[in-house]
């Protein structure tokens, strides 16, 4: 993998410019086609549940489980099973085709309260800054997710690659 930005190396927090260097990042072209997984995993540590979870075999890590996950963007259907399977909560699904103005970002959210459909939540970027508001489109929390609910938030399209967390109330 190519070198990450200084901030990513020192603080583990990816910048937008780092994303292109990750083998788990889909191309612009693929993003425009519909929902797809964004694997923001830049640490070479032993971990492979995402590979095992993907029903389409679209994530490959291989024999050496310290390899970074590689996304096969053609196979990925954007189903989002990998979101809650990732122990590092580093996988998101972005759907740029949600509407003309809005994209949907699917975010793992292990906090209380869990927002309801239609609720407006604050949206935060990777640095924890509130950058916009978003409407909750869907909340997915089946048993398989093992207490990692996935929240679908509709946000203005330009924020789709920045929104990575939500805040439901001021205390949350």
């Amino acid at each position, binding site marked *: 993998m190519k070198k990450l930005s200084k901030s990513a190396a020192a603080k583990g927090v990816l910048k937008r410019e780092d994303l292109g260097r990750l083998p788990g990042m889909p191309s612009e072209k693929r993003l425009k086609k519909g929902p797809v997984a964004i694997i923001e995993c830049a640490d070479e540590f032993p971990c492979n549940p995402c590979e095992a979870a993907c029903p389409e075999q679209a994530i490959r890590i291989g024999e050496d489980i310290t390899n970074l996950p590689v996304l096969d963007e053609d196979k990925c259907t954007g189903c989002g099973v990998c979101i809650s399977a990732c122990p590092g909560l580093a996988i998101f699904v972005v759907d740029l085709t949600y509407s003309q103005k809005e994209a949907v970002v699917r975010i793992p959210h*292990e906090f209380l309260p*869990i927002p309801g459909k239609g609720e407006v939540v604050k949206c935060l970027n990777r640095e924890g800054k509130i950058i916009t508001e978003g409407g909750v489109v869907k909340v997915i929390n089946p048993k398989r997710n093992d*207490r990692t609910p996935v929240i679908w938030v509709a946000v203005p399209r330009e924020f789709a690659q920045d929104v990575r967390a939500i805040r439901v109330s001021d205390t949350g």
Partner: protein
Amino acid sequence: MRILEHPILGKMPPRKVVKIEMEGRVLEAFEGEPIAAALTAHGICVFRYTRVRKEPRGISCAIGQCTDCVMVVNGIPNTRTCVTRVEDGMKIQRQE
């Protein structure tokens, strides 16, 4: 502060309430929880004062290793409160 609801651990299951006495103050505690947890839930954080310099001490490791949280429990000093479970009517004092 008790964590009544938790995103992973869920709702706190109902537990039997017992009464303990901390230097004359009667406190409610859950049966089977360590003394240190019960005191923390009631906002008590000074568990003892050191012998020579009279400095306050509280919980540090919470697993019985460090002995910072020892108190006089039912008259017995040096009791590790993080691993000693509460019993109804237990009398607890700060140690000096």
